[in-house]
């Protein structure tokens, strides 16, 4: 069974090695400051006690107030998995360091996050759009990509016809 190392645990471990690097810790993930991200990831990969050598998934999330990039990392030796995050609060031009120097496997996934969310990965050698064409306007996975009439944000706030909640958003009568 894979041991899922909680964010608080891993935050403590990182804190021991890099004081001042952890920004936040939740049960599900630990948030690392973007300036120390690369060295934290490299340490997590190289340290024999951690040995998170496999980057399972890299993806961005638009949290409206900030952008975050989640790194789901795994260790084959210890059969562990954990989640590291990094945040960027710049709404217009979010930017985080690239993980490609640590894991070349992040290359395509960072391109995807850049393409769909507009997160700029500093240090990525080949940051281009991947699914959409060059010159595509905007970044579609951002929550403000479609500004609907009446100031409504896209997305279901509620399911139409679900009892107990008043109709709002895009639900129809």
């Amino acid at each position, binding site marked *: 069974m894979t041991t899922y190392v909680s964010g608080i645990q891993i935050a403590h471990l990182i804190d021991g090695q890099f004081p001042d690097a952890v920004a936040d810790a939740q049960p*599900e*993930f630990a948030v690392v400051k973007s300036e120390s991200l690369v060295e934290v990831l490299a340490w997590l990969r190289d340290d024999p006690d951690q040995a998170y050598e*496999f980057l399972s998934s890299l*993806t961005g999330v638009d949290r409206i107030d900030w952008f975050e990039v*989640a790194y789901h990392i795994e260790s084959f030796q210890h059969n562990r998995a954990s*989640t590291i995050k990094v945040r960027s609060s710049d709404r217009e031009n979010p930017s985080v360091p690239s993980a490609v120097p640590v894991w070349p496997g992040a290359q395509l996934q960072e391109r995807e996050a850049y393409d769909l969310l507009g997160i700029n990965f500093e240090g990525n050698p080949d940051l281009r759009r991947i*699914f959409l064409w060059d010159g595509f306007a905007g970044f579609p*996975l951002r929550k403000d990509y479609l500004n609907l009439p009446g100031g409504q944000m896209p*997305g*279901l706030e509620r399911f139409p016809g679900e009892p107990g909640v008043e109709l709002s958003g895009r639900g129809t009568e």
Partner: protein
Amino acid sequence: MTIKSEPFVVNVGPQHPSTHGVFRLRLTLDGEKIIDADMVMGYLHRSMEKLAEERTYTQNIPFTDRTDYLAAMTGNLAYVMAVEKLMKIEVPERAQFLRTIMAELQRIASHSMAIGIFANDCGAWQTPVMHMFRDREKILDLFEMACGARLTLNYMRIGGVSRDIPDEWMPQAYKLLKELPKRFAEYEDLLLSNEIIVARSRGVGVLTPEQAIAHSVSGPMLRGSGVAWDVRKADPYAAYDKLDFEIAVGTNGDAYDRFVIRLAELRQSLHILEQALDMMPGGPVHERLGTATVQPGGQSIAPLALRPPVGEAYGRIESPRGELGYYIVSDGGPSPFRFHIRSPSFINLTPIKQMAIGTTVADAIVILGSVDIVVGEVDR
């Protein structure tokens, strides 16, 4: 004095018999030798991740069929597992076994295709593919009996599966299990030691384990490089912890290793299926969820609007192509706040450039065939 020919750019795809869909490989050639390779994708991009943010958790299940359309069951499974992890739902045991059985049947179907198409990429004129289709058809028949669909199955539900299998299903499945070993022996005879396939794929597209891990590849590609890693074994989900099976690994990390691993996994899947069918418990196949309402006239008992608690979950399983992960962020609403698919086909393409440079066009096709991509899953 040396004589060099002009660099020559060839687009393999997007309309090409060997890109398995609308995928484009831009090769820069010096004669027949590849000096640069670039991937162009997105021709099948259907913005599933965005669409899913506007649909309920249950409504998103059909999307998971349409990512990896050759292995819809595993797509379903990975997604419902991520949501169950988020909502902390316990799934009834019979449903767990049904999921395992369906996932393994799907693995056989998908690997059959992968092996056949790989032989096609090595230049066989459709014969292996057609033979493999025979088995796949029978598995699809089983799927049809279980859920009424053959390709986009939409069988799994959050909390279980959509419906129990009919009574005739088990005898039919046992019959298939009796047939398959003979077929697999036939394929091994035909393909395993086929000298041309060996000559074409051995030593082609070599990926050392260090490179493989660094490039985040997974599934048969990772195991082909000799890394014994299988999510079914490492992090058993569904009923895999009760079943006995082995992981197939390669020793050379080349295209041939990926191919023999798929062949070996056919037999392992069969072994799992035999045990799972024998051990299948009775009972319900679906957990009744809190807000569940029975749909008028519909068979499904899955609730239409689930509201998982605020949080996030990353569910991963071993799909036929590798580690298939669904990352779901919930804000407490009826639809996911963020819905991300960690698709193995997409990430397995990362080292293509590295593998292709220095080889020939024919090798590049073999390498691409050994990666076994499904463009629906690459572009999503």
